[in-house]
């Protein structure tokens, strides 16, 4: 089984450079990065980042919300309670646009929120990474890179030079992630 190593860096520039170096010069896989804020360009350096469906979910949620809002109004005003007021047609669609619009935005927001949590694998209150003492700085002031090292028989003693590689890139500490 291959092993997962977590390297700690001082700033986002070093982290980005380390990820780029690892991808270009070694056979180790860049599995993930953990940063206190969104580091521009980090996503592109992760191997096999699962596709991001949040925007699609927002679009579909918006269309779904708007259609159900419009459908509700047409159903209730034309079919369930057909009352003519002021000589207007039953399906007075220009008046129906307000609630349709609001329902569309609401559907988009809620659907996007669910897609965000789903895509992030949250809520997941505990994670093996939280067992590493230095990891609590991942939300404060340190930048972490997770790489997968070694082949089928890798272990702590034989990581294929991954620890040396990370130390050479300026890692402040390197730790093995408990499985």
């Amino acid at each position, binding site marked *: 089984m291959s092993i997962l190593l977590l390297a700690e860096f*001082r*700033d*986002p*520039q070093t982290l980005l450079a380390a990820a780029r170096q690892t991808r270009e010069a070694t056979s180790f896989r860049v599995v*993930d*990065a*953990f940063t*206190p*804020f*969104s*580091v521009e360009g*980090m*996503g592109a*350096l*992760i191997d096999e*980042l699962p596709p*991001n469906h*949040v*925007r699609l979910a*927002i679009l579909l949620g*918006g269309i779904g919300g708007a259609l159900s*809002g419009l459908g*509700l109004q047409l159903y*209730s*005003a034309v079919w*369930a*309670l057909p009352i003519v*007021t002021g000589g207007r047609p039953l399906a*007075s669609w220009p008046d*129906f646009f*307000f*609630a349709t*619009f*609001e*329902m569309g*935005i*609401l559907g*988009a*927001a*809620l659907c*996007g*929120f669910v*897609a*965000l*949590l789903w*895509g*992030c*694998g*949250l*809520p*997941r*209150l505990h*994670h093996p*990474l*939280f067992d590493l003492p230095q990891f*609590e700085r*991942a*939300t*404060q*002031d340190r930048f972490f890179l997770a790489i997968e090292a070694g082949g089928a028989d890798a272990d702590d003693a034989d990581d294929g030079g991954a620890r040396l590689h990370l130390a050479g890139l300026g890692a402040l500490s390197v730790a093995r992630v408990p499985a």
Partner: protein
Amino acid sequence: MTAPSALGLLPPGATYASVTASVADPVLREQAGRRWWLVFVVGLVLTVVMLGSMFWLFYEGIGIFGNNTSVVWGYPIANYVWWIGIGNAGTLISCMLLLTRQKWRSSINRFAEAMTLFAAAIAGLFPILHLGRPMYFYWLVPYPNTMGTWPQWRSPLVWDFFAIASYIIFSIVFWYVGAIPDFATFRDRAKSRAGQLIYGALALGWRGSARHWVRYEAFYHTMAALGVPLVVSVHSVVGLDFAAGNMPGWQETIFPPYFVVGAMFSGFAMVVVLAAVTRSFLKVEALVSLHHFEAMAKILLAGSIVMGLSYATEAYQGWYAGDDVDRTFLAFQFHGAYAWLYWCQIAFNVFVPQLFWAPAIRRSIPALLVIAVLINVGMYLERILLIINTLSRGHLPAEWSLFAPTLWDWLLLGGSLGFFMLLFACFLRLVPAVSMHEVKQLVPAEAAA
């Protein structure tokens, strides 16, 4: 990229650790000061006053208000429009400044959004309190019922219900998602078990993984793009509540945009007040700097000019249309019983903010605070005069009558202000009041070590 610290947005020598400490430590490590307790207790007392007035209202009925058979909308509707205006601004400010890449946004957006949530929630109470039979407010909700009735979809009041409900839910989601990474920081920094558990639950297990951030950015920016038209629609619908009525001073096509600008204007004034408060309570002077206040003062100045233009357009249209009832209304507005309030409104909203042309005033926090409070008073005057001027001088001279607020009108208004203070005080002590993860993006690389 230029070093943002050169713009004075961050203190010289700011690091990732110092940003975290300046936001988190006042909440997690330090006791609340005497001033915080003062705000909390005053807020709590006024909240009890609000609850007591609400109890008396439900017990006795809406006769306790100053409303009469001509002036049927009084303080409750003015309170509603004023609070929802403030409530619109936080999300509008946050979304627009994000989309236009204003770096100074990151210090103020969190509490501006919190202001939105609290103000919108308080605003939502008033239309219900104003109902003769408040227990039936849920009839606005479309649901299959034994009466076989459905909402009247052609009425702005029903649009309003949908707009406010969508807006409050949207704002909660937007605010909460923006705060998740900061809740995670609090979780990892909290010393007490209770703090770790509560912030841990709120953070949902956020790890700051690249996979998280990619999705977060996609969600947050798309929500910001949706938020701007949503806010514009919400306050436009509030404007339509009036504009769809066949009354002098109400039936004007300018109302939707004029209400949206008014909302942004009063909301920004409230953000200035809250920024000054947040800054002194949390000791985040470094993160909310004079540059932030100066930027907000410039927006208030621009807002005051648009408000002046709107007031002038309104008056001109009323006069030029030439209808007797419109001209009677205008004469009443300029010379009638409430004219002194109208001129105060013009002074506070249009003329006083012109002081912001002077750079020294834009950079003086006491001056900003006074002007911002005056703007909020001026905007309240606008909302109440909009109602009582029009309803006092309607189409039928036989129905003309004046309005005077009662003690209960004042208690409910003051109580709602106290409730807002209480909520905001709790927010300052419990939640990361400045968006740490966004401010940290401004820390220049060379100082980051």
